[in-house]
């Protein structure tokens, strides 16, 4: 299944802004995070098609997955 992955802020460094990947059925958000070597402790918010989701959610054909790092300074 094809899924568009969009990365934001520092997660783009050495990776990409957005790319379409072909994942096997049953792939979860956490599998994508692992495959892209995104540091879990830097994870902020994750969206699928504009809806806030957890790492355990399964992806579906045509999903747009957006991953933001945690920003916490003031």
């Amino acid at each position, binding site marked *: 299944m094809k899924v568009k992955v969009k990365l*934001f*802020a*520092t997660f783009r460094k050495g990776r990409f802004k957005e790319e379409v990947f072909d994942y096997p059925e049953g792939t979860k958000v956490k599998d994508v995070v692992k495959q892209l070597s995104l540091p879990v402790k830097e*994870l*902020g918010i994750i969206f699928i098609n504009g809806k806030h989701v957890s790492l355990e959610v399964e992806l579906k054909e045509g999903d747009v997955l957006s991953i933001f790092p945690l*920003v916490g*300074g003031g």
Partner: protein
Amino acid sequence: MRNFNAIDRKEQEELKRSHVLVAGCGGLGGYVISYLARLGVGKITAFDPDEFAEHNLNRQIFADMSTINKSKVEVVKEALSLINPEVEFKGIKARFEEGFEEMWESDIKVVVDALDSIPSRLELAGICREKKVPLVYGMVGGWYGEVGTQFPGDETLENLCRMGIKGQGIEKEEGVLSFVVGGTAALQAAEAVKVILGRGEILHGKVLFFDFLEMESEVLELA
């Protein structure tokens, strides 16, 4: 006050009667307070336990060679007396979580988060929920800023920070750029003023993510 028609006379009077609480007088807090004072907000209470230090010079508006080692709330008080002497400013040299109960006043219309850690922010969100007061939150790191407004009963900030309850985000490695602080604080001041005046579009249940490097922004639904 010379805000002309953007804020009309009645609204200007409303601002003059309003009390805003700002948690933190460092990066975001310094800018937010100066914006609110110039807008004519009548009463501002701010918390900060710290003194200015050399490492604040890169991004904190009231940090300079003459204010290093001085109490942030004292420096802000002095600065406001020059910017707008009509502002009734109360600076409390303490962490917000420690001092709020004693100084809480029922006329506080909105609280602005200018804290620098996620656990403190979540605590602040809890207090605002209990006191039934809207909270304008802001977070910065590197080239990136986030802003939104949480009303009592919302859990936007909790959703936003769920994965980061351990403490800090990318700012730990990236630092924070001066204009990201100023820009994010400007958006927070705008939100606070709109909450007071009941005007315009508020980032309710949403977060505005701003990327100053790519000049991109996203409004994310978090309700």
